[in-house]
């Protein structure tokens, strides 16, 4: 049995190298398929990153009436911060608000604003609390907690309501993008499966005479089939390796351009692949192995009836 296995490996390697151009074309097509799949994975990750960034920018800003005691605002901030849905609470005092306001102007203008403000007795800017949730879905709960708070009466204005319509749109958009993405991915997966099936079928078809002779000499189906299946495993491994070899240098070359084009969008393309390298390429390898083994099994079946 071991002897037979050794021979199968030998025949698989022989086939692989002696049918060099056929192997090369098969690997080329498989590599193109892998690159297409990875393009979709990348596009998906990219969409997620964009949506995430928009979501990160959404916060609730609560403005208190100018007369409110700073200590009350701090207690309110602590209470809200204790909610499980809240990721981050930032307390902005009247003074901080003023500093921030001033820093928004050039030095020259600042002097004039200073002058104008000097005429007012007190700092006109309200103190405020900036709240961000873990996810967009958490905001309604936080809002109702704010409304039920003992300090609700001191609140003058809430910024969240401005985003509400936009958020609904974003949610819908996200869902549509996901749906379209899944649809396109399935569509392409089917096309790729067909291409792979055809490639393997042609490879085997072009060698059907050889299989016929082998059978006439007394080879069992298994003795013909096993090296071919092993060969198709080589195809998968080689083309995935080639894909990674193409993908990584290309992406690291493109990374700065992507960052610049999308205005500093913090999407680390390489990091994205690195962080789930095993999942991304593991699944691709697994599915291509299953596909190759199935299709070569099917294709051989058609040409082994002697």
């Amino acid at each position: 049995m071991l002897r037979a296995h050794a021979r199968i490996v030998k025949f698989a390697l022989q086939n692989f190298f002696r049918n060099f151009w056929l192997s090369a074309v098969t690997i080329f097509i498989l590599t193109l398929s892998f690159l297409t799949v990875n393009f979709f994975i990348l596009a998906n990750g990219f969409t997620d990153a964009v949506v995430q960034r928009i979501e990160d920018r959404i916060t609730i800003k609560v403005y208190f009436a100018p007369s409110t005691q700073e200590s009350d605002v701090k207690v309110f901030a602590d209470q809200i911060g204790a909610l499980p849905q809240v990721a981050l609470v930032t307390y902005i005092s009247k003074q901080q608000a003023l500093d921030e306001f001033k820093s928004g102007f050039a030095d020259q203008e600042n002097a004039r604003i200073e002058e104008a403000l000097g005429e007012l007795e007190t700092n006109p800017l309200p103190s405020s609390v900036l709240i961000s949730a873990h996810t967009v879905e958490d905001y309604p709960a936080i809002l109702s907690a704010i409304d039920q708070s003992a300090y609700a009466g001191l609140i003058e204005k809430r910024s969240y309501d401005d985003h509400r319509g936009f958020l609904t749109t974003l949610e819908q958009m996200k869902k549509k993008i996901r749906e379209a993405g899944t649809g396109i991915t399935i569509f392409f997966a089917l096309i790729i499966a067909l291409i792979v099936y055809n490639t393997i079928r042609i490879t085997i078809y072009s060698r059907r005479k050889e299989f016929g002779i082998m059978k006439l000499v007394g080879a069992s189906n298994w003795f013909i089939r096993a090296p071919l299946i092993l060969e198709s495993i080589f195809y998968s491994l080689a083309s995935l390796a080639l894909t990674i070899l193409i993908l990584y240098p290309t992406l690291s070359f493109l990374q700065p351009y992507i960052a610049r084009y999308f205005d500093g969008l913090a999407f680390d393309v390489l990091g994205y692949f690195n962080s789930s390298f095993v999942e991304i390429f593991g699944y691709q390898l697994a599915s291509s192995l299953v596909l190759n083994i199935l299709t070569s099994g099917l294709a051989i079946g058609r040409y082994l009836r002697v």
Partner: protein
Amino acid sequence: MIKFDSVHKTYPGNIEVLKDVTFSVGSGEFVFLVGQSGAGKSTLVKLLTSEERPSKGRVEVGGWDITRIPRRDIPRLRRQIGVVYQDFKLIEKKTLWENVAFALEVCGESFHTVRTVVPQVLNIVGLEEKADRYPQQLSGGEQQRAAIARALVNRPKLLIADEPTGDLDSLTAKGIVDLLLRINSVGTTILFVTHNREIVNMLKRRVILIHDGGVRSDKSRAKYFL
């Protein structure tokens, strides 16, 4: 060794090639199978290796009824019969050595056996120096001898040669015939399919003539006449 019992063979499209063929060949015999081109000689060989199945009748090889042999038993049948095909049927992507070795490898012979037997057999057919060539790099006669080497390598009890001298000059053909006679002398049954009147007449062995889909004549120590 071989037994045909009222065998009919009709190819798809109602092409009736063999109608009622009956004969038998004993163990260790040397038999010529002759007949016009298209008479159905190669078809008869195909029935023996189960490449085709009889439409009617019974075929036996070595006492084994192969008329309705299950698919999974076919490789076992073929490993016991050496066949030299009319069109050689060498594997193009394998060297001469590998082609011959393959017949041993399918039987699961040890690496050692392969290494010792293959050169011996190549030596017998005089091709030991061309062992590393691919079939396309060999002449027609050399390919024919390579096919004989492959058919011999398993020491089959039955050797079927379909036109093994077709492409050879008469001197080389004589060499092949001598070789087959030698193989026959150690007990291997030989079924020699040929058109070659000269060889048939020279050897004066049993001759089975296939004509019009049946056995026209079957004579021992016969000459070839149509």
